[in-house]
């Protein structure tokens, strides 16, 4: 019985892990942080599936094997009150798993939150109801825009603010999200690693227009980026530049 149960659990877990890993969960990997998060996710899947499969297998097996059969209506099960050995095992093993995952997560967090190098480009992100405003200082002058442009493979720090209510600045492709909180400046840093256009989404209920508070970040090769920003700087200056 134990061998067959173990076999079922191993096979079902393998199938489950296979399916779960095969699913395309994430959008494109747009930043240096993305592959690390995606790998972490895969680790979580590999750990979680066997736990779920074990619980459900043991439960379904019990239901199949010890279902009340005709004639057993008056019968009871054996008066088993517990087993200290079993309780120790199923306390210690989850503790080890939790400790391991938490350690991995803590190290990963410190890694992705590592302070950016001096001189990293700063983009000021301002959330208002219901739009994103981006402000970057470039050699050609400050650029203010509702669309975000970034050069590929260059680190950037986002300083995020809000004037009215709480918003959340989220770029799914970058795998980073942080709230825009009135009264404080939040920030995060990363390096975009893929050329392309990616969604920017507001992820904190901010009122009527929350669903429409979206924008796009376009990551460009450095030369192209310079050209685009020069053009925008010119346009910003022409408009007058103040918030």
């Amino acid at each position: 019985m134990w061998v067959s149960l173990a076999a079922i659990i191993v096979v079902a877990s393998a199938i489950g892990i296979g399916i779960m890993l095969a699913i395309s969960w994430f959008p494109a990997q747009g930043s240096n942080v993305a592959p690390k998060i995606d790998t972490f996710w895969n680790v979580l899947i590999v750990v979680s599936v066997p736990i779920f499969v074990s619980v459900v297998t043991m439960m379904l097996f019990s239901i199949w094997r010890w279902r009340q059969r005709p004639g057993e209506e008056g019968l009871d099960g054996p008066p088993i009150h517990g087993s200290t050995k079993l309780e120790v095992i199923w306390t210690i093993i989850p503790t080890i798993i939790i400790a391991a995952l938490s350690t991995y997560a803590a190290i990963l967090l410190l890694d992705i939150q590592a302070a950016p190098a001096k001189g990293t480009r700063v983009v000021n992100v301002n959330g208002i109801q219901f739009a994103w405003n981006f402000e970057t200082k470039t050699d050609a002058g400050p650029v203010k825009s509702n669309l975000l442009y970034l050069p590929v493979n260059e680190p950037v720090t986002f300083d995020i603010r809000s004037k009215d209510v709480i918003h959340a600045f989220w770029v799914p492709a970058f795998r980073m999200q942080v709230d825009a909180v009135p009264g404080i400046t939040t920030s995060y840093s990363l390096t975009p690693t893929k050329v392309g256009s990616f969604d920017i989404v507001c992820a904190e209920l901010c009122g009527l227009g929350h669903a429409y508070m979206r924008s796009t970040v376009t990551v460009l090769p450095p030369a192209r980026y310079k050209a685009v920003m020069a053009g925008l700087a010119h346009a910003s200056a022409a408009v007058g530049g103040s918030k």
Partner: protein
Amino acid sequence: MASKIRQAGWYRALAFTILGIAVCIGLSTGLRAAFGLNPVYDGTAVLQISLLMVPIFFLGGIGCFDYWLRWASGRKVVDDHADHGAKSWKDYFKVNTDHKVIGIQYICVSFFFMFVGGLMAMLVRAELAAPGRQFVDPNTYNGLFSVHATLLIFLFVIPVFAGIANYVLPLMIGAPDMAFPRLNALSFWMLPLAGVMMLLSFLAPGGSFAAGWTAYAPLSVDAPIGQAFFTIAVQFAGASSIATALNFLVTIITMRAPGMTFFRMPLLVWANFSTSLLVVIATPFIAASQFMVLLDRALGFNFFNPAGGGDVLMYQHVFWFYSHPAVYIMMLPGFGIISEVLATRARKPVFGYRMMAFSLLAIVLLGFTVWAHHMFVSGMPNWVRIPMMATTAIIAIPTGIKIFSWVATLWRGVLKMDTPMLWATGFIAMFTLGGISGVMLAMVPLDIHVSDTYFIVAHIHYVLFGGSLFTIFAGIYFWFPKMTGRMFNEKLGKIHFWLTFVFFNLTFAPMHLIGVQGMPRRVSDYAEQFATWNMIISISSFILGLSSLIFLYNMVASWRSGPKASSNPWNSLTIEWQVSSPPPIFNFDTIPSVVGGPYEYGVPGAVHAIVGDPAKDLVPAGAGATEGHS
């Protein structure tokens, strides 16, 4: 007519309500005149004062304060037992001090709000079935999901558990009633007031409250007057909850039958004891958070106004300090129910009784140390985030102990897979999934990506629907014969379970995926790429919603004309099953004596409690004969 208004009841409640509104108008205009504010009559001011005070007038009118005021005025008071208990359906619409009546009142009112809140969910899913606007504008949409969540949390899950416990717990511990029956009645009557207030918000100018059930400042401070309905209704629901919890704690501590030591209490009692501790300690924080919002809104305080030196994040800290324990308030009683159902239907003691009791207490303690995991992306420093991640992950350990113990309870039992058992085993599977997504969310690097997305919506519903609601159904079906004296239709019960199980998973499982792919929550519209999954989810949700009608029909039809139930259809050992179905009005003629543990199945002749006059009764309640198979 005059006598109808002088007696406690609905006529007087109506009269007092009108009087209350008049008083509020007077108070508002008087105060505004005294402070030199213009215009002296201001509708918003009247409304805010009315929301606070008119419910109290109603409660006075319906009769919640009569006895106490009489006692306080020094007049003679008589405990009139003739009023105790329900003899007709009308008694359920009055102030009644019988815990069994109050329990049924709670359960019925809670299910009413479940259906209303569930209907709102259907409207939400209808709007989300396709991209673009379908039926409602964004403001109405925001109101729909806000009221949906608020009703289901404060007007369904929390009170229905209170109702089930109210009915069962005194019987289970061998007490004639709760410690404070009049307070119990008051606790109940505050509830429909809170619910009606929340629904009335749809009529307010500017629409219902629409800042989510979390009502973050500054959005909730700036919102139109509909928000005040949430702010104040939550106070009444919270007061109801605290008073009930206080009642449970005193009842459990001081009114157990002789011989019922703490370690001979059924786990439902342990679960409600733990939950009540959480309620008494944590609920004041949500009251405070809403007081602060109210003060900011109505009187210009600066708690959450950064321009005035206030702190926006402070709202979240105060709010979540309650609202995280709240999720355990919404789950622990369900854990108790599952232990009762599994032991009885598997004919085996609950595995690891002591650890099951201690794990409840561990969850209570740990539950206070994790609140900031709802704020991982709010800009908190790592020295807060990493410890909160650790404590959040640690809660998985006592919870895991419970899940493994329940499965071990099934192991080698004699399993009767009837409706309550289906819900209990379904719960184990669904809650394991919800718990796993919870551990994933505890990991900050992942939470940074999926915070406030549909992954969170998936997690919430796996633990609250697949978790709490499944246990609620298990409990309702399990104690239905005891409460109504009739048996429900087993076939319909099974159909209800399977439809719910299948379509629940079809509705909420895909949400994990679209959340990780990039769909945020609380949005009335979304990017084209999510259209297919949203359509599948919406259609599944409609069938899920319809399946609840089977439950409603079963309950109503069986209550009216189902086959009569015996006192102990499940052959259970706990005390509530040793009295008739429904129980006698005062529960017992003499208090039972507890002589053993509550789950001594498999021990021939084992007895948990001796109920009734041993000389008169035919045979004391005992376990089944020989143990089943090995």
